[in-house]
């Protein structure tokens, strides 16, 4: 492989898979809120 091809391969992996990793980290930092369902409609 040429040097430019190797660089582009690394850039592609870092941006896309890195983006995926960041997205997963962001989601893990915001854990799913417990659903207090069914939310009582006032009188309950």
């Amino acid at each position, binding site marked *: 492989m040429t040097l430019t091809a190797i660089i582009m391969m690394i850039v592609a992996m870092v941006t*896309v898979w890195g983006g995926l990793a960041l997205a997963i980290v*962001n989601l893990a930092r915001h854990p799913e809120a417990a659903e207090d369902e069914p939310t009582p409609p006032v009188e309950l």
Partner: protein
Amino acid sequence: MANATTQTKRREAFGSRNVFILSAIGSAVGLGNIWRFPYVAYEGGGGAFLIPYLCALLTAGIPLLFFDYAIGHRFRGSAPLAFRRMSRAAEPLGWWQVLICVVIATYYAVIIAWAAMYTWFSAQITWGKGNEQNYFFTEFLQMGDLKKGVSLEFVPQVGIPLIGVWLVVIIIMALGVKRGIGAANMILMPLLTLMFATLVVQALFLPGAVDGLNAFFTPNWEALADPGVWASAYGHIFFSLSVAFGIMVTYSSYLKRKTDLTGSGLVVGFANSGFEILAGIGVFAALGFMAQAQGTDVSGVAASGIGLAFVAFPTIVSNATGGSIIGVLFFGALVFAGVTSLISVLEVVVAALQDKLGWGRVRTTLVVAIPVALISIAFFSTTTALQVLDATDAFINAFGIMAVALVAVIVVAWLLRKLPALRDHINRRSSFRLGWVWMLLVGALAPIVLGYLFVSEVRAKISEPYEGYPLWFLAIFGWGMVIALIVFAILLTLLPWSRRSHAKLDPEYDEFLVTERYEPDAETGTIALHDDAAKGARS
């Protein structure tokens, strides 16, 4: 109130946010990721394609994904019901999406059936070394001529596995959102990732693999000056993420109220692209081997779609050491990626009719899926299946999916002006907040790009008959089909919603509107809402 809630069946829901995310990834990752992306990227400048591709992902793909999530989650319904709740006049958009999904499901299933057969063939190289092309078109598909019209001649080696695919899919659908769709994705998606990763590692060890990767990643910077390359990046991202044809609206309507929509969407968007990069590496490593084995350049063997999967890959399987394993992994991956996408397409249809008729899951699934399966078997297990598939796919992509997306963004952003409300709905529960940039991307950039792509498709399809098919054939399976979808969408909108349908009776939705302090729904709001609650909602 409590009685009303317990008497009416609760809307189905995904077991957890992670199940939703895996199901949405399962929907987005389909055949296109494996057999389309590698070639589109290669043709569009190799490594340089990364730039338009990432731009398209960030400025169109993910913003439109959020747009779909917002509609489905805010209006909590299948595509027709969600659009109806947004505005009565928008309901035909939902039915148009439903009908598009009906058409896609009919032919998507047969590709899965071929791939399932080829998983089996790979184990014993049934096609015979050197006979790959002839085997697929002549012996397996028994491809006939269109001159005698559309054939009704049943090809058993295609038809029987196709029936099998439908049986499996109908069982998954009948089990419901949680136990069927969610469970299938929880099993198939990790398995698909594992299989594909193994395939890629194996492909990388083939002689010539490095040449394939070199061809795939070497940037051709001049390609960036070509508007066609940018258009193909946007077009690809758009189809790849399965946005704007009802799937993501339907899936997000099964999310719990307090779900981080954008945080989930970012994972789905990047996971889909992550899979594409993996597929690009695997496919081009294998093509590098094929080029070396045939003594040509990678450019001489690069292909996409059916040619890549059912001619090039069998050739690789015949020639590589351990080829059978590569074949089983590759075709098995196609089957799994296809099934998870097919169930998402069908769910658009099942959910719409469930909402419209107020029926239970199993009954609706059977009433919807059996006729779709019969149409699928009638058209796609015969000797002219490939031509019908090719024309239908080309026309539904351009004048179905792309057209409905274009109309939907214009209607929602400009006529109904709902983007600020959708943005606020998303921001109330999401980690990644949206602002005017998102509205600009969905309201301005998306219509411009989709409009450009749509016009160029119209020009291309009008200037000469698609693939040189006979005019009567294109008039039925091309133009006629796409126009019929719009006509039927309007007719379906005119059919009244019964009193039992979710448009008229949905206490859960009323409750949701109250807790969210949204205006009560014009139709469901007529049922017993507690006075104070109703006042609270209106204030």
